[in-house]
């Protein structure tokens, strides 16, 4: 443990902490390996204020002769200020924060030290496995099987050990098909639609390259998916121009002549740098102090964030429409198959599948489609909107997902078993967490670093009785129907709960939520009863 090397000054007295919604308070600041701890001596019962260093996105220091000010901009978008007496102390604290908040060794991160009394490391890590998920879906057992071809992560390093594939395709074929897909991410099942018997699959791009290479096994695999029906859709999350260009670097797309029966549609979803910059611009717009509506609307437009929301929801709607209305199977992929593909496939499932809209069902969906499916959380969420560090792999794809889910829940306030606080909690946890769920970039990495043995699982924790109540939607009424979102611009709104959560505006809305909760529990059946029925 080398944390102490980074800590030159561990304690400073008479520090003034300024944070949203609170009067400035004077107290003692303490730096530990993972936290800033601020305790207010005067406050009798007040709990100390605890900030995960990992949560700090950017730090600005303004030392002067006898004191200094440190501004901390957090990944949860909160901005704090510390007034520290003594220039030296100020500089020491700032440098400790700078180095401790950017440590990148996974096994040194806080989840490996977090040991709350109410959780045990003996508990199951994660909610379910591919095998368990498969076992629950009796109706697919004829046509689909679990393959453990990736049990040692050699076929696809970013895939989980077990995946669901067509029954008729053997492991050998899978291995060959995997060689034809970037990162070995061959097409796997993510959703089976009971009424139509059609499916949503996802994968990465085929490696057809400039020479238009083919792979018989990959073609067989897709043929097996639409076996018996005449048509399937490939939703490529790149523009057709981007897909063409990808061939130059060894990537590509499924050409019509090789994949008979598959129709390809291109829907360009932004990711990577473009998405990260969009978030940065949006957060900047939200922090703008000018009082001009014109300026606000122009900055909001310029950030393009809501355009990304619109495109993501509309692409997911398209996928769901193919499956539910048209009765055709869909394969979703972009290039790597670890970002926008997951975004689209999980949103489509929320639209179609009532089981994924319960609290447990939604967390299960996130576990399958994001954690197990190999969304590189560590790379994507290394920094958030305030960081001045040069961007590498950061992209708020998961935050975009949460925003889209929020839009769905806003349009269908009775259809989701979970509530906005859950989405806000996830948006915070994905950047800095006590739990190990969002550590690492793949299942393989989590195994290697011992995440599953030595950290606690966020999803398990969220489903404990008292948490569950807090995160349940009091208005929830299960519906079996698909929930088709409107993607008309007036229907899509800025997610104030997230992006403006540190302004006063939010307080009245939180109060309103409480009133709703009371009203429902008074007027209707007791809340407890509902929560119990929620996830059965």
């Amino acid at each position, binding site marked *: 443990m080398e944390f102490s090397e980074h800590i030159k000054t561990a304690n400073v007295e008479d520090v003034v902490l300024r944070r949203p919604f609170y009067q400035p308070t004077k107290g003692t600041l303490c730096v530990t390996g993972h936290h800033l701890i601020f305790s207010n001596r005067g406050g009798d019962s007040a709990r100390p204020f605890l900030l995960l260093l990992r949560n700090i996105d950017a730090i600005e220091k303004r030392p002067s002769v006898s004191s200094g000010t440190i501004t901390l901009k957090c990944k949860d978008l909160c901005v704090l200020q510390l007034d520290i007496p003594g220039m030296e102390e100020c500089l020491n604290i700032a440098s400790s924060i700078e180095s401790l908040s950017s440590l990148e060794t996974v096994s040194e991160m806080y989840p490996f030290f977090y040991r709350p009394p109410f959780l045990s490391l003996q508990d199951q890590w994660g909610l379910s496995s591919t095998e368990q998920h498969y076992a629950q879906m009796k109706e697919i057992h004829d046509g689909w099987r679990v393959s453990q071809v990736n049990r040692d992560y050699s076929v696809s390093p970013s895939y989980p050990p077990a995946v669901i594939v067509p029954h008729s395709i053997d492991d050998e074929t899978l291995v060959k098909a995997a060689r034809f897909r970037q990162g070995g991410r061959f097409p796997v099942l993510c959703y089976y639609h009971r009424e139509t018997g059609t499916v949503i699959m996802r994968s990465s791009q085929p490696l057809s390259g400039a020479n238009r290479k083919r792979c018989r096994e990959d073609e067989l695999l897709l043929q097996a998916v639409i076996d018996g029906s005449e048509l399937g859709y490939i939703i490529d999350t790149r523009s057709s121009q981007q897909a063409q260009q990808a061939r130059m670097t060894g990537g590509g797309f499924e050409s019509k002549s090789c994949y008979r029966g598959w129709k390809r549609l291109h829907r360009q979803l932004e990711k990577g740098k473009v998405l990260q910059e969009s978030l940065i611009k949006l957060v900047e717009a939200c922090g703008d102090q000018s009082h001009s509506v014109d300026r606000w609307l122009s900055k909001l437009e310029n950030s393009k964030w809501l355009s990304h929301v619109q495109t993501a929801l509309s692409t997911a709607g398209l996928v769901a429409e193919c499956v539910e209305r048209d009765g055709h199977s869909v394969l979703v992929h972009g290039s790597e198959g670890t970002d926008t593909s997951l975004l689209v496939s999980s949103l489509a499932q929320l639209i179609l599948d009532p089981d994924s809209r319960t609290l447990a069902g939604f967390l299960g969906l996130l576990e399958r489609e994001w954690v197990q499916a190999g969304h590189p959380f560590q790379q994507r969420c290394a920094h958030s909107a305030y960081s001045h560090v040069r961007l590498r792999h950061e992209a708020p794809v998961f935050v975009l997902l949460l925003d889209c889910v929020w839009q769905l829940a806003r349009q269908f306030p009775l259809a989701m078993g979970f509530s906005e606080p859950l989405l806000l909690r996830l948006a915070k946890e994905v950047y800095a967490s006590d739990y190990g769920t969002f550590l690492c970039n793949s299942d393989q990495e989590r195994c290697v670093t011992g995440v599953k043995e030595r950290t606690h699982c966020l999803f398990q924790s969220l489903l404990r009785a008292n948490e569950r109540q807090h995160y349940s939607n009091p208005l929830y009424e299960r519906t079996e129907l698909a929930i088709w979102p409107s993607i*008309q*611009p007036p229907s899509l709104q800025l997610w104030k709960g997230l992006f403006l959560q540190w302004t006063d*505006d939010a307080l009245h809305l939180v109060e309103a939520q409480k009133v709703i909760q009371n009203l429902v529990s008074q007027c209707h059946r007791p809340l407890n009863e509902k929560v119990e029925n929620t996830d059965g």
Partner: protein
Amino acid sequence: METIVMEHIRLPKVENVRLIDTVTSRRASVGTLYLTATHTIFVENETEILTETWVLHSLVFSVEKQASTTTGCPLLVRCKNFQVLQFVIPQERDCHDVHVSLLHLSRPEHYEELYCFSYNANSDREDRRKAWDFINLKAEYSRMGLPNHLWKLTPANHHYKVSDTYPADLYVPKSATPPVIMGSSKFRSRGRFPTLSYYYKENHVTICRSSQPLSGFSARCLEDEQMLEAIVRSNPRSDFMYVVDTRPKLNAMANRAAGKGYENEDNYSNIKFHFVGIENIHVMRNSLQKMLEVSEAHFPSMSYFLEGLESSGWLKHIKAVVDAGVFITKAIAEEGISVLVHCSDGWDRTAQVCSVASVLLDPYYRTLKGLMVLIERDWVSFGHKFSHRNNHLNGDPKEVSPVIDQFLECVWQLSEQFPCAFEYNERFLITIHHHVYSCQYGNFIGNNQKERTELGLQEKTHSLWTYLWKNRTDYINPLYRPDHSQTQGVLRPLTAPYCFKFWGALYNRFDRGIHPRQSVMEYLMAIREETQQLEEQLASHEMDRRAEDVEAIWASPPSNSSVGLANTPGDYSGLGGFLKSPYQQKEPENSLLILPWPQELRKPTDPDLSTNGDDQESGIAGLSCLSPPNEESAKDPDSDETAYSAA
């Protein structure tokens, strides 16, 4: 009068007309179009349940005949409540006749042609007269604590002899003598001298209102200066007052050249002058027009929408009004300083700003009855020119402007920020908006009290307020808590730009597709009604008629929300549907959304349309047989959006 109206109907009935769904542009229903003395009615063919769309002539904003195509001649009808109907009429000649008829019918020349004079005309006169007493301004002033030792009722404007656009009863400082009032009124546009709008009981501070002074570049008026001095002195807590000119400074200065203008601080001792820069009626009219173009666009991109919203300037104008209200609220409640508000004539921006400030200051105006009283006081009695602004008669299009629309929107924006502070819901505001234009009730007919008295509106028409009060359960915000901290005292809203949102529920009121597919408010109202009904049933077997109606609305239990939820996909393909099936399929009947509208907007408010056979029916040859016998399925002549959205 009826014969005049009937002459305009060149063609009472056209068959095989198609009504295009303007939202998706893909679905159309075929039916028969009827023109009656009061409504355009479209009756759909071949549906199991009778589907009718009724459009009141007075709600028609414009009728546009477009170029003929092979399928017929399109006729675009835009309504003042933002409904847009596109008919396609097979024969061009028929389309022409309908077009010309509608142009006449929707632009009456005389007040007497308006719908309110024929609407439910046979009801008991005495009942009707009494209903008008429901909102009583005298009671409102005494609720504020007037008259008292500081403020008195002046008879100066009895018989409207000082200002023909002011109400007869006005409150002025006790020290304001008749010569001062007379002198001041001569120095103000249209004789609208400074008078009390709102009295803040807590600290005896007041909001006064007037028109601009006729100061030109240098003119003075001793009485006017004395009048303002009297207002200052009537506030024992402060030795000066604010004069808020709601116009942009440039506009106010330009007025000086015409012998009008604003108060010179040097001439009026003890005033602090302040401009708040709200644009004039012409700017607002154009701004709304631009915003509507944006909101009507089919499948626009997010950028198009946001850019359009920005360039329309609409939200900027809304913010300017709220900002002005906040400024006044601060002066009154925090600084304890009285305020005089004016613009040019003092009936548009002044009304907006005074009433927004009242809503912020006084929880009473956040109740159902309070908002009615407020509109009655600051708008109706003080001579907001409803008939000109809302285009009730065939008049000068430059007089038309969405001034009260903006006030209602300000209230909505505030209610979005304080969800528990308002007793009324969004639907209440939208319903008022609807009737400001509909001319179904007498409240908003004419341009001032004098005109209204001469028209005998209280004898000849119905009052909207009693109607709304009778149906108040439809308009109650289930989150309202009289004892909630948000509710009490002064509201201090944030006015950061992001607090102002596009009001889709009003401006896209008829594009059901864009609204939330399930509504928390409806759900809460439903469960509240359910509980109340259970209690009522237990309490007595004698359920009143109202409760039965409620039951009818909620025939499908609200908990069974999946029925209402069966919505349809949006246009995700972005290409007008490359997928073969979804849009050609007839939507299931239950694709109705779950937002049930109050009875008034879905069911007849007339006791029974088909038996009311004196005058209203005369244009509807053969229509009476279409009116189903029971009230439940008869359609509201006013607006049949539920039926429309099912089409």
